[in-house]
């Protein structure tokens, strides 16, 4: 049947659209801008990618359960401030002050991020606050806390001092290992872990189930609240990692770091084919979505497109992605019906 076959071809193309999009974007900029595909530039873009992509890992899981997390940008900010404070001033305990080494500082910052995420999860599950509202509120509270922590000022010069045994913090953002910088390695490792959780563990199946039909999931014995608590904590953890990367690269903690990052993360997840109502999508798709946004951003900057146009183009791309997604859904339903 010719029409079914052509529909199936169209469907395949639509399913692979994020890869096609990435290919087209890279092609366009490589032809119009000098140096776009140079090794140097690709490594730089990879570094920029980590910020959006790591956030999109956590955001994917949250959106897969049908929720949303608007507070990740603020968590990026506060995790940097926590790390900055610990490196500069340590933890006062009684009469003395404890200075943690950089690894421990990083772990503590991640714990803080996860705890804030857990707070989000608690508000959403046990207190029944809708995710949009809960994370919107947390977004403001956490940003305010980051500003208050040093009265709006930054913690500067976070290189640590040898006398305090806390040097080496900047390796998180700037270290290099086998040609790739540390943040890129962190992204690769975290992506593998996230995909593993989602594909190979019962928790992963539960995430999809909760997103697909929460009532049915609850009736089939899945601990929905625990699943949600996990995804929001994980999202907070990812945000904390991004905060550490940025703080380490800049060697200073800025309380406004991460402002509006949640938008890019959500856009990456949506572009990658995840539905905002939950239950459908892939983590790898989100990462590719982040690649597209990053390539688009950096490409537009490098080819000198005015930044006001950059905003328009970015918005158009996102809307287009959702429209195509709807198209894919309808075609899929039609193919299934005629099978």
């Amino acid at each position, binding site marked *: 049947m010719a029409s079914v076959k052509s529909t199936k071809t169209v469907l395949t193309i639509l399913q*692979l659209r994020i*890869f096609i999009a990435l290919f087209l974007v890279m092609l366009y900029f490589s032809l119009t801008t*000098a140096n776009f595909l140079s090794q140097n530039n690709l490594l730089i873009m990879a570094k920029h990618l980590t910020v959006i992509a790591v956030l999109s890992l956590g955001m994917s899981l949250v959106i897969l359960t049908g929720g949303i997390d608007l507070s990740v940008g603020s968590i990026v900010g506060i995790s940097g401030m926590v790390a900055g404070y610990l490196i500069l001033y340590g933890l006062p305990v009684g009469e003395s002050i404890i200075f943690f080494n950089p690894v421990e500082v990083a772990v503590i910052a991640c714990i803080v991020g996860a705890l804030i995420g857990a707070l989000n999860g608690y508000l959403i599950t046990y207190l029944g606050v809708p995710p949009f509202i809960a994370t919107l509120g947390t977004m403001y509270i956490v940003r305010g806390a980051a500003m208050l922590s040093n009265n709006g000022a930054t913690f500067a010069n976070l290189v640590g001092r040898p006398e305090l045994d806390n040097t080496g913090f900047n390796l998180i953002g700037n270290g290099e290992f086998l040609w790739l910088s540390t943040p890129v390695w962190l992204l690769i490792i975290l992506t593998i872990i996230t995909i593993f959780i989602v594909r190979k563990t019962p928790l992963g199946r539960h995430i999809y189930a909760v997103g697909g039909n929460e009532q049915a999931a609850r009736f089939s014995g899945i601990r929905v609240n625990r699943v949600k608590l996990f995804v929001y904590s994980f999202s907070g953890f990812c945000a904390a990692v991004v905060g550490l990367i940025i703080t380490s*690269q*800049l060697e200073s903690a*800025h309380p406004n770091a991460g402002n509006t990052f949640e938008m890019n993360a959500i856009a990456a997840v949506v572009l990658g084919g995840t539905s905002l109502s939950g239950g459908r999508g892939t983590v790898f798709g989100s990462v590719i979505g982040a690649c597209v946004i990053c390539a688009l951003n950096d490409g537009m900057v490098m080819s000198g497109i005015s930044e006001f146009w950059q905003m328009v183009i970015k918005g158009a791309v996102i809307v287009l992605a959702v429209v195509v997604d709807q198209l894919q859904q309808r075609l899929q339903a039609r193919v299934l019906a005629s099978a």
Partner: protein
Amino acid sequence: MMNKLFFSLSIAALIVSAPASAQQSKGTIAILVNALDNPYYAAEAKGAEIRAKELGYETITLSHNEDVNKQNELVNLVIGRGVKGIVLDNADSASSVATVRQAKEKGVPVALINREIPEDGLAIVQMTHNNMQAGSEVARLFVKEIGEEGEYVELTCNLADKNCVTRSEAFHQVLDNYPGLKMVARQDAKGALLPGQQAMDSILQEHPNIKGVICGNGPVALGAIASLLSANRPDVKVVGIDGSNDERDSILSDKLKASVMLQAQVLAIHGVDLLDKYLATGKTDEAERQMTRGILITKANAGNVNDFYYTEKK
């Protein structure tokens, strides 16, 4: 799965077969400032662009919007693009140190304009306005205008910007010497026209007997004037700092009493000149930190101001 593999491979093939970079002219200079919709930063960018083109460079103008992370990313991107030098009006001095250092390590000289960083030896030059002098001069004129007794209001520009803090300190180092002058309100008007106007509206309700308003930058001063005019209070004297064309016009029509023109174009042009010299000879032969005076503008000399450039008309 096979399809995904196919596409991943084709992207990889594209990367491997990337064309060699095109030949450059004298090179490109990147100009990185704050928001381009503020006339001050637009003037800086324009001054630098024109000068760089005169010297034979191509230019690329970007804005970081006070976001240090974006600034870091943009600097990395333009270095990757192969620019020869960067003129930077940085966002938040302390957080910009690492970014400038990275540029230096990659062999791209950076000329800092308008705002300094707390470390020496990283940028080839750090050019700032003498905000202290600007603030003091306008404050002294403010005292002459409103007298040594009375109530006044201070509307600052965005206090997250160190320059704004310096200007406010300069005001107080002059005004606090006059115990007869009482500051009845101080508000951070975010350096923009609308917040300035709204702040003035509220404060005027609360304190109708004020004699003057001293503002941290131009847009705030213009906002305050708009508010005072709509409340029919032309007797309240307003001064500011910046010296944009809008302020000049306001001074010429007797609305704004005085301003201090910051020589944005002079800074930008000198920054480009020093980059050119550094690229040609490997050094600048000048001190790293340079201050440039602001020029007090009153009705008498307002006609000499245009686009943050002061030309003495003989």
